[in-house]
């Protein structure tokens, strides 16, 4: 009932096309993340849904209601900004009570709903404080409580974790997820953080330059990206270009890289091989190279390996398994199934 769909929505600011010809549907009850680099139009999309701005062309439908030009106050949508945007002159209680007061609910009803909301975000006892007397994480939770207390049809979150430090971020992240599950509310979150997107969402909408690059589950976006941009934006990628050899390999000037069959594709292709799918070993493997660069990252170590053909490969090795030093020769190998042929890249002569 509360799915949101965009059809051919465009929004420009002067000469800048913030969102261009966007069509997508966000399903009811799902947690959808809009992921994209800074300036890709994420905030613009949210403000179009929330009714803070109106599109130049196209339609936005919420459930079975066309809300394209419905004023923000009549949309029943909860919104949380990155900057929290709490009312500085009101107590925490009054902040959360605000949407109920403008709906003219009874004092008793307001009290019980605000208390429920405070309990839900674990802030009971702080209702008399002012926003500036709370920590960043607490302010964020107040903003969240205020956005859900009036039972909105959808919840919109604009980079809700960006202003928090790393440890707090993980805490609030799981709280948001738990809250969304408990309320079963359709949620759209904007972020430029790929880890956040992958860990929280049922579906990810990857945005680039105001256009949808790809829509899919976190697994699909990460392991089966459609474009080089999608592959490169989520995690590190080794791109392998060359002609597809029917015997099961991509062959090019950079070497011969065994891969499984690539469906319909023939000719020149671009394959994706994630650093964690590569095994480095002194024993003979698929391609040979020399370790040029070692970065220790705690859980894993990242190696820059220069192949004999001169091409650099990024390799992740977990734990203490097979430690290598700079200048050491290594063999790289992988499960040929792990090379993903990008369906929308290649074909041209490189």
């Amino acid at each position: 009932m509360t799915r949101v769909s965009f059809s051919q929505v465009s929004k420009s600011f002067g000469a800048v096309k913030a969102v261009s010809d966007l069509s997508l549907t966000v399903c009811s009850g799902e947690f959808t993340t809009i992921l994209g680099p800074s300036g890709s139009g994420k905030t613009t999309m949210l403000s179009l849904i929330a009714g803070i701005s109106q599109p130049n062309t196209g339609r936005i439908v919420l459930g079975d209601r066309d809300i394209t030009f419905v004023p923000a106050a009549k949309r029943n949508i909860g919104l949380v900004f990155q900057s929290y945007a709490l009312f500085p002159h009101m107590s925490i209680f009054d902040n959360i009570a605000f949407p109920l007061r403008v709906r003219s609910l009874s004092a008793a009803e307001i009290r019980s709903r605000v208390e429920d909301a405070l309990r839900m975000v674990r802030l009971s006892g702080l209702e008399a404080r002012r926003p500036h007397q709370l920590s960043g994480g607490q302010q964020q939770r107040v903003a969240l409580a205020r956005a859900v207390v009036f039972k909105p049809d959808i919840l919109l979150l604009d980079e809700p974790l960006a202003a928090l430090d790393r440890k707090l971020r993980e805490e609030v992240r799981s709280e948001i997820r738990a809250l969304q599950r408990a309320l079963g509310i359709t949620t759209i979150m904007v972020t430029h953080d790929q880890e956040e997107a992958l860990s929280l969402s049922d579906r990810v909408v990857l945005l680039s330059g105001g256009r949808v690059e790809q829509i899919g589950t976190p697994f699909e976006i990460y392991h089966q990206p459609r474009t080089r941009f999608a592959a490169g934006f989520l995690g590190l990628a080794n791109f392998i270009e060359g002609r597809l050899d029917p015997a099961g390999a991509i062959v090019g000037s950079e070497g011969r890289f065994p891969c499984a069959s690539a469906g319909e594709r023939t000719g020149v292709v671009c394959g994706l091989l994630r650093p964690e799918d590569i095994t480095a070993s002194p024993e003979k493997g698929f391609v040979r190279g020399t370790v040029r660069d070692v970065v220790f990252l705690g859980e894993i170590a990242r190696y820059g390996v220069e192949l004999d053909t001169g091409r650099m490969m990024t390799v992740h090795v977990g734990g203490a398994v097979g430690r290598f030093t700079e200048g050491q020769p290594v063999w790289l190998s992988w499960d040929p199934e792990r090379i993903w042929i990008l369906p929308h890249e290649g074909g041209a002569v490189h």
Partner: protein
Amino acid sequence: MNARSRLSTVWLTVVGASVLLFLCLPVLIVAPMSFSSAQSLEFPPPSLSLRWYENLLGNPIWIDAGKNSLMLATLSSSAAIVLGTLAAYVLVRGNFPGRHLLEANFMAPMIVPSIITAVALYIFFARIGLLGSFTGLVLGHTILAVPYVVLIMQAAIRSFDIRIEQVAATLGASQRQILTMVVLPNLAPSAAAAWIFTFVMSFDEVVVTLFISGTTTTIPKRMFSELMLQVNPTITAVATLLIAFNLVALAGLLLLTRRRGFPGGMG
């Protein structure tokens, strides 16, 4: 620090101190003179007394002028706050053609020499029959005060995060509820500062008042006409009281704008 820059620091201090002294000179001379026992304006005073203050407070003409000035300043600055704040909100948050023209129009009384405004008001009020009335005087002072209110309140509204207003809208608040429940409470400190500022301005205003006030007397107008007739040290007592009043107002302004925790504050 080398000798050269030390020299320039000394220079800067000397020049700064001299300018400050020059600016304070009238105060340093007028205040002691008001406590003089002499019959004429004399500096330094031969001996101290409060006779000129007694003279001032015992004179119904001065008391009347004081009442008029207070009433005039209160009414005109209050009217200017209401009009100027609403105008500033529309100018900052509005998005309509001719906005800049409208803004220039609100600022005009600050830029146009007050003698021009005075003449214009004189002719206009004469036409509509308000010349010499107290209402006309309040209107005139309001017009002079509005640009300063618009200026101060525009700065305050600009520094108030627009996203707070946008969130209020998504929470279901009407435009009017956003203004009264969210925006205005946060602008209160700035509005109070603007009110004090325009109150003091109205209290000191003389040019427009001379033209349009008719028989109504205000303190500055009375001072002016007193000086034309005879030089009487009562003037120095009035001046000293005005200076003290301005200092108190200034302190009030500083206190208001220093306040923390309000995004609408000027400080």
